[in-house]
């Protein structure tokens, strides 16, 4: 099966994730969408890695996972503290600063 299709899938996932970021209000969900985008990247990496027949892409995928994990740590910490302060995880509520 042509690996190019994996790329289309990756692109699709990435777009879905991006759309989610733009649409969803809940910070957690938004964040999950970002994760989705990262995973789309991973898929792309792996696909390309297979195409080119070298390991760089796969290794990159591992790094991405690690980074994603780190982002979860930091991100959740922030989001949770905001949630506790405002009793809402809505991104739109956090708009004290504007203009």
């Amino acid at each position: 099966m042509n690996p190019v299709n994996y790329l289309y899938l990756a692109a699709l996932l990435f777009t879905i994730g991006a759309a989610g970021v733009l649409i969803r209000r809940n910070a957690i969900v938004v964040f999950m969408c970002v994760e989705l985008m990262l995973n789309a990247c991973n898929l792309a990496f792996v696909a390309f890695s297979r195409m080119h027949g070298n390991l760089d892409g796969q290794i990159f995928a591992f790094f991405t996972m690690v980074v994603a994990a780190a982002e979860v740590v930091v991100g959740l910490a922030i989001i949770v503290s905001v949630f506790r302060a405002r009793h809402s995880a809505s991104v739109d509520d956090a708009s004290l600063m504007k203009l």
Partner: protein
Amino acid sequence: MSSMAVHSLWTTAAEPLDKIPAPHIEYTQLSPVLIVIGAAILGVLVEAFVPRKARYHSQLFLSVVALVAAFAAIVALAAGGYGSTKAQIAAMGAIAVDGPALFLQGTILLASVVAIFTFAERRLDPADHGHKVDSFAAEAAAVPGSDQEKAAVKAGFTTTEVFPLALFAIAGMLVFPAANDLLTLFVALEVFSLPLYLLCAVARRKRLMSQEAAVKYFLLGAFSSAFLLFGIALLYGYAGSVSYATIASVVDGTVGSVNPALADTMGNDALLLIGFAMILTGLLFKVGAVPFHMWTPDVYQGAPTPVTGFMAAATKVAAFGALLRLLYVVLPGLTWDWRPVMWGVAIVTMLGGAIVAITQTDIKRLLAYSSIAHAGFLLAGVIAATPSGISSVLFYLGAYSFVTIGAFAVVTLVRDAGGEATHLSKWAGLGRRSPLVAAVFAVFLLAFAGIPLTSGFSGKFAVFKAAADGGAGALVVVGVISSAIAAFFYIRVIVLMFFSEPKADGPTVAVPSALTTLTITAGVVVTLVLGFAPQYFLDLANQASVFVR
């Protein structure tokens, strides 16, 4: 893909492990980074084991020593010719040790040192329950206004974690402009972004705003890095490698061995161009260029002012470093594609930043927009696509970062009951109350405005000159116009400080400790020296303007 390749893949993996060559690391060349990272890890340990009383001092000591040492290492390397003759690629092609890298790392380290001083300032707020307090929350995890927080304050907790966090960020920033493959680039980006997200969240006053800033910064940052990552993926897909050198050779078609797979992807420019565009998104986000700038004002406003200063200065340096390397090392073959695009970005950034800044009413947001405008000026230099372009950008970054840190340091001094008084109306008549502080701030503003005899002018002139030389005369004109617009709001602040009567309930100017004083002095000195006699530093930048490939 042929089954042949797949097989080979398996077989390589099945080779006995001892066949994998141990990576060869040039510890001397990497010493600056290593020192900082090491210090950061130590910092974490300090948090873990050193009693609370002693933490502040040990952390401060540790970080300052580390940064100074790192800087010393940089100087040593530069003196050793690693910036010019012995420039090389270290750590198995992961990190470049060359002029631009060293120059930018040096700038970042110096900026960080002075920034760290403002982190450590504990003289501005009145002591709380007998404990000296800095600009960071007693216990960031505690809900604002909750009993837990009160208890933390009472107990005199302080978030000394900011020091290791800052160190991690700095380490990331040191690597970012030196990264010589996309993987390192990405990792470095995250390494310096994540701590910054946290640092934004831990303000002592106005915690809601601080947290909000953090959320926005984090979400948008993650969003942008996703773009960056996808871009990287596409680029990897195009070139079959993440190492700059290889990609470059593939882009300008000088690659040695072309296997069928590569030949197949090489033919597909869409991969290259889209990938490039998305990587650009990631970097321009960090740079704060229009239209990827919108996080800047909010984050700058919400974050604790010392952090803002640190971010504004160091992040820009690192990001521009990476941008330069990407454009000049990876994609020189693509110049004719990226130049027009960057033209557009530069123009909207210069104008956008300047115009929107006019109607700002909060000093920190004002400075945020001015930083956007300056990003635009820098981009004009980047576009020059000449060595003089590189050196001018390097110089500008050095000049700009000190002005910025100094300016934000001054902002921390002007306080009223609610902490820093950042609303412009509160600054009315400051010049009458404390002429010195006002004068210093005026110097910084004039430097931002690019008035001659300040570093701002030297930098602007260098950049515009390079742009004009590079045939971007139109950019210079736009730059000049936006400087004129920008001048208007810098002047507005000066008018406010000197020509309007002070308000009765106006803010007071806190008398800072030696730390902040040192920062501000450094800012002023650099601003004036680079204004009056910039030649030496221009020479440095010139020598440092050659990338290694």
